[in-house]
């Protein structure tokens, strides 16, 4: 491979936090490999951090042609300004055609900033990527209008063409121990005058849920209105010996931890019974519950898309329905115990 392959090509941002569970970078490298073969170009994984040697080797083993590395103690922790300025400088120098990253909480913060800095477009939360055979442009398929339709987005004039993709959308290539590649260390300048200083970081303690294996799942959406209201779902789940899941707005609001997130960026469930309460039925969420045997939907909006996939629909305010449901279930449970 000659040095000109560093210019242009497909870049994948290396998100190695929580590796080996977090596989999104490997999945994007695999997709990048497929796109690169169509476009006749190379795949470069971009890696920032301290002592990231093993990740460079992993990315080569999983299909990257090149790994571009910045090793520096200042990069040990993610700092959005520093990361943005470094990658932006590299992108301006090397001019990649495509820049991909995971649609994780990290990607959601970092990629919009980077796109703004590079004055280019960004398609967030993509569900597919392909190449237009006529133009060679990247077709970025992403949910639009609240997830009610899928839009195909192109970036015809600006470069790089940027997209974030949900974890699990693409399959990673198997680890190839015989693989070799190039490792490139561009010059870096670490500005000590960052506006944001990370004083310390602490991993959030998350209570493990057993959502994937649960036979009964109760899912709450943003329509519940408050974290207090959401807590009643745990009472319902306890009565039905189930688990509680949530949609993304609920997680973003901090009503529950991310371990309970259902959807493209969260978990996928296949329970015998799923009760979906105050969820509209956005595509990002419903793809994760398709495997449920029976779905009961409760929503005040009779036109909510969730009713289209529900086996049983109940139109009403959750604040009115939930207490009645809990009371009825409690009576039945105590009655059953007496018998």
């Amino acid at each position: 491979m000659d040095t000109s392959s560093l210019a242009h090509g497909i870049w994948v941002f290396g998100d190695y936090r929580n590796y080996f569970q977090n596989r999104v970078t490997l999945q994007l490298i695999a997709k990048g490999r497929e796109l690169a073969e169509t476009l006749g170009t190379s795949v470069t994984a971009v890696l920032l951090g301290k002592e990231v040697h093993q990740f460079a080797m992993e990315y080569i083993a999983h299909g990257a042609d090149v790994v571009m590395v910045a090793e520096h103690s200042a990069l040990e922790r993610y700092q959005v300004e520093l990361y943005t300025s470094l990658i932006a400088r590299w992108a301006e120098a090397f001019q990649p055609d495509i820049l991909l990253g995971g649609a994780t909480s990290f990607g959601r913060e970092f990629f919009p900033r980077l796109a703004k800095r590079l004055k280019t477009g960004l398609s967030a939360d993509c569900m597919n990527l392909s190449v237009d055979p006529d133009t060679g442009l990247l077709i970025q398929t992403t949910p639009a209008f609240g997830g009610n339709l899928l839009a195909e987005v192109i970036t015809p004039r600006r470069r790089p063409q940027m997209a974030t993709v949900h974890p699990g959308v693409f399959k990673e290539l198997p680890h190839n121990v015989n693989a070799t590649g190039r490792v490139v260390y561009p010059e870096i300048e670490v500005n000590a005058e960052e506006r944001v200083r990370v004083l310390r970081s602490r991993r959030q303690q998350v209570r493990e849920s057993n959502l994937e294996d649960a036979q009964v799942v109760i899912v709450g959406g943003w329509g519940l209105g408050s974290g207090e209201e959401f807590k009643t779902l745990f009472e319902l789940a306890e009565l039905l010996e189930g688990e509680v899941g949530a949609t993304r707005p609920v997680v973003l609001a901090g009503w529950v931890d991310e371990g309970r997130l259902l959807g493209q960026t969260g978990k996928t469930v296949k329970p015998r019974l799923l009760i979906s309460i105050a969820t509209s039925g956005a595509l990002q969420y419903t793809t994760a519950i398709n495997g449920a045997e029976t779905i009961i939907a409760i929503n005040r909006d009779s036109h909510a898309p969730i009713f289209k996939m529900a086996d049983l629909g109940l139109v009403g305010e959750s604040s009115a329905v939930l207490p009645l449901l809990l009371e009825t279930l409690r009576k039945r449970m105590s009655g059953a115990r007496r018998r």
Partner: protein
Amino acid sequence: MKYQESHLSAHHNYLVNGMLAQGFSVGDSGSRNGFFLLADIVPFSETAPRISARLMDEEARLLVELEANRIRENPGKGSIEHSLDGYRIVNFSGEVLMEVRTRAFANGYLTLLRARLFDEHGHLKVEPCDESICVYGGNYLSRGSNPKSEVIQGRLRQGKNFLHRFRGRLPVRDVSCLR
């Protein structure tokens, strides 16, 4: 923007000048009289590094000649001390001439060297830096299967100034021509 590069393997690499390299050599690795250090490519069926070298002191006297991790000539009366993750070469007075340690990752290996080595003219060619070594002068990062005969990607700049600049900023090549 300037950059340095080398070739890496998914299986095993050395850390030299802060960079991953599947193999590298310093000096003439075929020399029978002069100094050299050869860190050969490790095939995926093996996990141990392959180090060959002629280790010399500041006065250009041969201390130990090493061939594939084994002492071949030993005028300095050195010895090999093995450990769980590698080995070290010590001279008759117990001074460590070279240390070789291999770190195992989940799916690969990284070998770190520590040594202060001189060539046949008494010039410093290798010295410890950060967690491994930095090398001076005509050294090569391997490109193909055998760094003895294959050439060579990314010849490093010569001189100590380069190494000082290397710490923190990594200039070497201008890629403006690629745009």
